[in-house]
């Protein structure tokens, strides 16, 4: 198991390297001088020169990369001249709404997706199965920000059950917190729930066709134990992968949905930074989200190893 963990962690190095390269070059594929673009048309030549110096743009490109990556390793994501604070500080300020939203959406998605998927697999071909799969197809076809708009229209504008937009931190009480978060979480969670349900169903169906299910049956095992013990544990691996992928989608999807509901999270930070052409912040936030995504998928892989002995032992 130790070797497996080590191997998985080592395999991240090339990926993280490429990710950092891509993020680094974002600022360099901008047409024109980034410093000039950042300051706008009214800037004087001196201001531009000064900013170039501050950003390190006057140094050779590899040197710029090493300075930047060196900062990141020590937790310094750069400095935002627009907000006049370090990117790390800005990021931490905007992190908790996004994290809360993504987490709530993921919980919703898992709690809906897995049971529905199992149910559909158990009743394969029935009307229940068909309607569940119909709903999940609809679910993966509605982008989260659109669902958010439609839900606002129906629940907030027409029925006036919930606030149209805004955010209350958890310090204002869990009820208040959820009141503002539940619509965004539903808009975000539906597509992921649909993806998880589809994967659960097909994975369960695959596993239920396996020979060892016949063996369990021939031992005299009860139907329940066959579905929930013998099948689900095997079917869980692909489901886990999807959950890992949905987490990345959730964090970024949260960014889009946040702008619909005016939630002061990472999404707002990115969108505002794009409007202000605040490249250090854009780079910092994108790098942060992608790193967390990669780390989450690493954790999922490690859980894989715990669930499936074949994965952990084949690495020996």
């Amino acid at each position: 198991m130790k070797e497996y963990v080590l191997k998985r962690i080592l395999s991240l190095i090339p990926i993280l390297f490429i990710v950092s390269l891509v993020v680094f070059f974002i600022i360099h594929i901008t047409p024109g001088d980034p410093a000039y673009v950042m300051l706008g048309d009214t800037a004087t030549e001196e201001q531009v020169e000064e900013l170039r110096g501050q950003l390190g743009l006057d140094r050779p490109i590899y040197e710029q990369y090493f300075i930047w990556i060196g900062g990141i390793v020590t937790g310094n994501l750069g400095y935002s001249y627009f907000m006049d604070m370090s990117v790390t500080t800005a990021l931490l300020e905007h992190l908790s709404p996004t994290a809360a939203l993504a987490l709530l959406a993921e919980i919703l998605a898992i709690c809906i997706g897995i049971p529905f998927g199992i149910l559909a697999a158990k009743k394969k071909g029935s009307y229940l199965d068909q309607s569940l799969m119909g709903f999940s197809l609809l679910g993966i076809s509605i982008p989260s920000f659109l669902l958010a708009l439609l839900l606002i229209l129906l629940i907030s504008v027409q029925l006036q059950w919930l606030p149209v937009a805004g955010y209350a931190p958890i310090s204002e009480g869990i009820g208040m917190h959820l009141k503002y978060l539940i619509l965004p979480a539903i808009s975000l969670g539906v597509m992921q729930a649909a993806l998880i349900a589809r994967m659960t169903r097909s994975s369960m169906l695959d596993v239920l066709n396996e020979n060892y299910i016949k063996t369990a049956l021939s031992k005299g095992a009860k139907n329940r134990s066959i579905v929930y013990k013998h099948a689900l544990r095997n079917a869980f691996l692909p489901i886990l992968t999807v959950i890992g992928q949905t987490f990345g989608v959730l964090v970024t999807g949260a960014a889009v949905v946040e702008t619909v509901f005016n939630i002061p999270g990472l999404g707002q930070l990115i969108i505002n930074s794009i409007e202000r052409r605040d490249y250090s912040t854009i780079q910092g936030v994108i790098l942060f989200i992608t790193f967390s995504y990669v780390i989450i998928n690493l954790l999922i892989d490690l859980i894989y190893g715990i669930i499936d002995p074949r994965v952990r032992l084949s690495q020996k």
Partner: protein
Amino acid sequence: MDTVRQNVNLTETKNNLKKQQRRLLMRKFLSNKPAVTGLSIMLFLIILSTVGAWLVQYSPLEMDPTSRLEGPSAEHVLGTDNFGRDLLSRVIYGSQVSLIVGFSVALITSVCGMIIGLYASYYKRLDNILMRICDGLMSFPAILLAIAIMAALGPSINNVILALSIVYTPHIARVVRSSGIVVRKQTYIEAIESQGASSTRVIWKRMAPNTLSPLIVQSTFIFANAIIIEAALSFLGAGVPAPQPSWGNILYDGKLVIFNAWWMTVFPGICIILSTLGLNLAGDGLRDIIDPNS
């Protein structure tokens, strides 16, 4: 003489077999409800975006301050927006943008992804490098990478297509590579290679056709995702720039007036759902047709 006749017979039977296979595939396709429904929806949207644009009486950009935010009526079937522009016309022209972006991305990623995937599956050393790069790009959440590239390039339709192609090419490359490797390992490839077939011949004559079906399925889903992300980018103001209409930026305008003009959210919303639903249906159906296990 006899061998010649035999050869003729052989090609004839081969052609007959191919014809039979094609007929069988056609029958399988026609009996697959999701695929037929999905492609019909797409056909409907294509007709709407071409013929419809020709039929509408208002230009999508024509502002009329006297008739702002009017609900659906005989004059403006889907109502007007906050600048008094005809929503029907904007939605129809917007569908052109969405379909063009989606289709271009599907096409570009298919071509690039196929080349990368095939050569990666043929040359082991190339495989290592290319797949690490693909892994790197795929470890970005899709929308985020698109936002990052758009932030650098600035909003325009071409940039949206470019950004989404970069985002999705690795996905196609992965799919093509894995089916390419399966073909590569087959004994008959070894046989024709030992007879001196060149690598180009093996790659494009033998391996490429076998990777086509999974590629088509995957690119259908990419088409759908491209439409969704284009709409999201435009909604965020990082995609198709105003005043050119796209479903995403109509929704953006609609969000500002969501209390007084539901039609600006509902109609472009329906269009997005229809197109992605159609493509997802088609993708699911095609996968069922191609995959013998299902």
